[in-house]
């Protein structure tokens, strides 16, 4: 697959000036499907709004922070992630069957979908472009340490890497290790240390005192 370009604003401006073939095709498609009565444009707006503003990696961050604070919840999450995560209100599409896998000082987990883009939507939202890209899908299984290096993550050679290829309808959440020096933080503050990438396994949680996750520098 080709890589996307950069800069939303620029592309959105260009889209308005001279519509790309995709813009015209999608417009025609939506018109016909609406005329046929198959789709309701208000439902399309609601779907986009949901994944833009309501369902995203902050959901998963709350799950992880709770597992760091509550040993009973952590046990439940590792035993029956679907039920434990649903108890926090996150369930459904592309997260029907959840498994949580825990990082330890000896083991680091990494999640990929080499065949398409399977990803736990209820807790992480839509997958980032890199997760869906050919380089990640090709290399994560064969060269996981090289992929981690692309994210600036270098693990000691003694840490084993466990790669989960999501080839069926099971979706994986990585439970990262709680950062050192975070003992004094509240569950809410801990959630701010949990990055999306740390829940896929391509990153580590932020250190206490760093700018909060989900806010780009």
């Amino acid at each position, binding site marked *: 697959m080709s890589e996307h370009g950069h800069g939303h604003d620029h592309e959105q401006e260009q889209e308005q000036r001279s519509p790309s073939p*995709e813009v015209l095709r999608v417009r025609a498609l939506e018109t*016909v*499907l609406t*005329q046929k009565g198959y789709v309701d444009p208000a439902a399309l707006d609601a779907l986009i709004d949901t994944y833009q503003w309501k369902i995203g990696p902050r959901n998963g961050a709350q799950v992880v922070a709770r597992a760091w604070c509550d040993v009973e919840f952590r046990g439940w999450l590792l035993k029956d992630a679907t039920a434990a995560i649903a108890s926090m209100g996150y369930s459904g599409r592309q997260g*029907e069957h959840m498994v949580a896998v825990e990082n330890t000082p000896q083991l680091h987990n990494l999640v990929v979908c080499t065949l398409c883009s399977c990803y736990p939507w209820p807790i992480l939202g839509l997958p980032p472009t890199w997760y869906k890209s050919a380089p990640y899908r090709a290399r994560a299984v*064969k060269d996981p340490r090289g992929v981690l290096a*692309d994210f600036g993550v270098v693990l000691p050679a003694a840490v084993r890497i466990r790669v989960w290829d999501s080839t069926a309808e099971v979706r994986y959440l990585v439970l990262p290790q709680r950062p050192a020096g975070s003992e004094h933080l509240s569950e809410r503050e801990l959630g701010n240390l949990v990055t999306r990438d740390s829940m896929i396994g391509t990153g580590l949680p932020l250190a206490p005192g760093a700018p909060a996750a989900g806010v780009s520098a």
Partner: protein
Amino acid sequence: MSYRSHADLGGRDGYGAVHPQAEEELFHAPWEARVLALTLAMGATGLWNIDSSRAARESLADYRELSYYQIWLAGLEKLLLQSGALQAGELEQGRSLQPAVAVARVLRAAGVAAALARGTPTVRPPSGPARYALGQWVRTTAAAPPHHTRLPGYARGKRGVIERVHGAHVFADTHAHNLGERPQWLYTVMFDERELWGASTAPQQSCISVDAWEPYLEPA
């Protein structure tokens, strides 16, 4: 039946760096969001299932040249024509020319949150006991079948160990081709890196798993 997936990328050489991305970057243009929503809304009509939509996308001849949402757009158009929901010419003209086909349901805005929260679970009552147990060694089937399947090429004909048993799930291979759900036991099968890549690749201290339905496996 001739069938070829262009989406099976795992373990292929020659790809460059992965480029990290900020959490709030979801779409590169508004049309991408619209394609996502149209795909989800059309999925709700019941005209096809998630496995047939994956099959429609992965078998696009120009899959490797397209961006992610270009694949989704082409896949959606293909499904609409295949299912008879749209007729040739309607897309080109941008208007409905033929009567609509009957659909099981139409997703309304008020129903979006509930539909997403419900999802489409794939676990089913098993028709018999699981053939394999935790810790058992198995070998994956070697031949690529001439239809949609979810056993990646890199994991074919390889020896691994059953690490998890997930119950019986809708079988993607048949479901994708409208041959029924035919639920099969689903397992996580773990492989050592040397089994998958041989001694030629520098060891990374890694192991890799796939989720495999029982028909993909034989005793090792």
